[in-house]
C-alpha cells in the first residue's frame, strides 16, 4: 500500500472476488476508476480467471445415479427398521435391497463358495507343488509354491492369523473364476491396479465382508459437557448422581470427593454417558442443586473417520495383493522377504487404524460430562473456648517447638556458612593485625 495505491494488490483481487466489505469495495471501485496501474492488475486477474474457464469437463454419465438410488432405498429401510426398534445391519439391508436378484446372486455365491471350500480343503493326495486357491485357507494346510516360500509362509502363519478372505478358485492362468462377491473381491487382489475400476458399491461389499469397524450412521460428534452445582444436601446429591448414571446407562470415569475442614465438601467427577442420553442426564443433574455454571461443546470427527475408513480399505486391498503375490509368484528369497516385510508393515498399519477407528467410535458413542458438586457450607459457631490448661499446654508445646527450631536453624547456618567464615577469618587475620599494630605505633595514646 502506498499513497498512490491505497489498496494492496491482494486486496484488489479480493474485491474482484467479492470478498471485500461494502465500504472497502466502494473505495476500491473509486480507486480503480482513476488508477491505470490497478486497472492493469485487475485486467490480468480477470484474464486468468477467463482462461481457466477453458477447461470444461463435460457432464457425468447416468451411472452415477444407480448406486445413489439404491443407497436411498436402503436408508429408507434402515430408518423404518430403526423406528420399529430394530437396527438393521448394513450388510443385511444391502442384500434386501435387491430382493429377487439378491436371492439368485446369493445362490450363485453359495455355490461358488462351497465349490471353492471343497477345492481348497485338506487333501493329502494333492500334488506337493500345486498352486493354492485360497488365501483364507490356513497356511499350514496349504500346498507351497516352492520350498522356500513354503517355509516362509509357515513361519509367517505362526505369527499372524490367516486373513478372513475367501478368494474364488483360479483358472489355469491364475485368474479368478466365477461371479458375485467373491469374484469382485478377487479382482481387487489380483495384482492389477484395482481401485481405478472398482465402484463404490463394490467397495461397500469389501467393507461389509471385512471385520472393520462399521461405518457411522451420520456426522460423528464428540460431545463434551460440564456442569457445576451447589447443593444443600451433599449426601442426597451424591446418591442422586449415582442413580442418574445408572438410569442412563452411564459410568464414572473418575470421581474425587474432598472434605476439607472449615469449608463445604466438593465432588468432582468425570462421567461417561451415551451420547443420546447426554441431554436427559444434564436435565436431571440440574435438579440436584443450583446450577453455577454449565457448558457444552462438540467436535465433529466425521471427516477424520471417513479418511480413516478409506485408508483402512486401501490397506486391506494392499494386504490382499501382497498375499496374492506371495502365493502366486516365485522368485528370489530376498524378494519374498521384501514382500513379507511390506506385508507386516501394512498389517501393522491396518491394526493401528482399526484401533483408532474403534477409539473414535467410542468417543462418539459416549459423551464426556464433567460434573462438580459443591456443598452449600454452613459455618459452625464455636461456643466452647479451649480450657486454660489446654492453652498452657499448647503454649508450652509451641515454645519447645520454637526453641528446637531456633537451635536447628543456628546449627544449619553454622554448617552452611561456618567453613567460609573460618576461611575468611584466617585470610584476613594477619593483614588486620598488621595494620592494627601499625596504627597503634603511630598513635600510642
Amino acid at each position, binding site marked *: 500500500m502506498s499513497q498512490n495505491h491505497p489498496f494492496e494488490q491482494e486486496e484488489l483481487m479480493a474485491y474482484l472476488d467479492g470478498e471485500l466489505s461494502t465500504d472497502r469495495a466502494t473505495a476500491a471501485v473509486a480507486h480503480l476508476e482513476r488508477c491505470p496501474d490497478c486497472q492493469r492488475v485487475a485486467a490480468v486477474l480477470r484474464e486468468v480467471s477467463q482462461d481457466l474457464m477453458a477447461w470444461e469437463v463435460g*457432464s457425468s454419465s447416468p451411472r452415477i445415479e444407480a448406486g445413489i438410488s439404491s*443407497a436411498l432405498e436402503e436408508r429408507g429401510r434402515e430408518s423404518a427398521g430403526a423406528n420399529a426398534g430394530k437396527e438393521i445391519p448394513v450388510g443385511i439391508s444391502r442384500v434386501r435391497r435387491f430382493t429377487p436378484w439378491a436371492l439368485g446372486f446369493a445362490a450363485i455365491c453359495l455355490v461358488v463358495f462351497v465349490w471353492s471350500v471343497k477345492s481348497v480343503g485338506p487333501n493329502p493326495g494333492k500334488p506337493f507343488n500345486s498352486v493354492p486357491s485360497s488365501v483364507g485357507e490356513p497356511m499350514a494346510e496349504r500346498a507351497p509354491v516352492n520350498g522356500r516360500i513354503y517355509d516362509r509362509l509357515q513361519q509367517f502363519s505362526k505369527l499372524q492369523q490367516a486373513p478372513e478372505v475367501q478368494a474364488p478358485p483360479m483358472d489355469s492362468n491364475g485368474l479368478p473364476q466365477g461371479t458375485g462377491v467373491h469374484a469382485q473381491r478377487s479382482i481387487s487382489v489380483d495384482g492389477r491396479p484395482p481401485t481405478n475400476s472398482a465402484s463404490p458399491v463394490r467397495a461397500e461389499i469389501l467393507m461389509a465382508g471385512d471385520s472393520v469397524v462399521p461405518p457411522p*450412521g451420520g456426522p460423528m460428534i464428540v460431545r463434551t459437557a460440564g456442569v457445576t452445582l451447589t447443593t444443600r444436601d451433599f449426601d442426597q446429591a451424591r446418591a442422586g448422581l449415582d442413580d442418574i448414571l445408572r438410569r442412563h446407562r452411564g459410568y464414572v470415569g473418575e470421581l474425587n470427593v474432598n472434605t476439607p475442614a472449615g469449608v463445604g465438601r466438593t465432588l468432582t467427577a468425570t462421567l461417561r454417558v451415551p451420547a443420546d442420553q447426554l441431554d436427559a442426564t444434564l436435565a436431571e443433574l440440574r435438579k440436584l442443586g443450583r446450577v453455577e455454571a454449565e457448558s457444552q461443546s462438540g467436535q465433529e470427527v466425521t471427516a477424520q473417520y471417513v479418511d480413516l475408513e478409506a485408508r483402512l480399505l486401501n490397506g486391506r486391498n494392499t494386504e490382499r495383493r501382497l498375499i496374492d503375490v506371495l502365493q502366486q509368484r516365485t522368485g528370489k528369497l530376498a524378494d519374498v522377504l521384501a514382500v513379507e516385510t511390506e506385508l507386516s508393515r501394512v498389517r501393522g498399519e491396518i491394526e493401528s487404524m482399526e484401533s483408532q477407528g474403534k477409539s473414535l467410535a467410542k468417543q462418539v458413542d459416549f459423551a464426556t460430562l464433567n460434573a462438580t458438586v459443591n456443598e452449600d457450607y454452613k459455618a459452625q459457631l464455636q461456643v466452647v473456648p479451649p480450657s486454660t490448661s489446654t492453652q498452657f499446654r499448647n503454649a508450652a508445646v509451641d515454645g519447645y517447638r520454637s526453641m528446637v527450631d531456633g537451635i536447628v536453624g543456628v546449627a544449619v547456618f553454622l554448617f552452611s556458612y561456618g567453613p567460609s567464615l573460618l576461611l575468611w577469618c584466617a585470610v584476613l587475620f594477619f593483614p588486620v593485625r598488621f595494620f592494627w599494630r601499625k596504627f597503634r605505633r603511630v598513635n600510642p595514646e
Partner: protein
Amino acid sequence: MTSDEALMLEFQRGSREAFEELFARYREPLYGFFCRRLESRERAEDLAQETFLAVIRASSRYEPRALVRTYLYGIALNLVASERRTRVRNAVLVEGGSEVAANPDSDAALWVRRALERLDASEREILMLREYEQLSYSEIAQLLRIPVNTVRSRLFRARLALKIWLEPEKRTHGSGMAIDASARRREGEGLK
C-alpha cells in the same frame, strides 16, 4: 430457493426429494471437482458417487454447524487424498502400474491443465477451489485448515504465476511452455 442446509435437514427427517434436490445441485460440481483432479473420468464418477453415499450414511446425525457445500467438498478432498495415496502405492507395488490419462480434454483444456500442474500443490488446490468450485476465501480456509490471509496471498501468487503459463502468445509457439524464470520474474515485477 431452499438453502442446502434446509434441504439437508429435510433429508435427515426422511425426505427423499430433498436429497434428490441436493444431488441435482452438486452432482455436476462434484463430478467436475474429481474430474479435474484425477486422470480417469470413470474414477471421478465413482468418487462423486462415493461422496453422496457418505452423505447418505452420515445424514441421520447431521448438525447444521457448517455449510453443506463445505461439508461435501471436505469429504471430496479426503477421498481425493486417499485416491492419490492408493495410486502412489500401486505405482510402487505393481510394475508398470502407472495410470494412463483417459480424459479426452480439448487443446485449451489441456493447456490449462498443464499450466495448473506447474503450480505448487497448495497454491493449485486453493486456486482450483476458488475458480472451479467457487468457494469463498473463508470456506477454503476452513476446508484446508489454514488462515484466510494465507488463502488470499497464495491465491494471488498462484494467479500471477498462472498468468505466465497461460500467456496467449506462448500458446501459438508450440513448445513455448518452458518460460524461463527471468521472464516470470520480470512479469511479476511489472505487475507490482
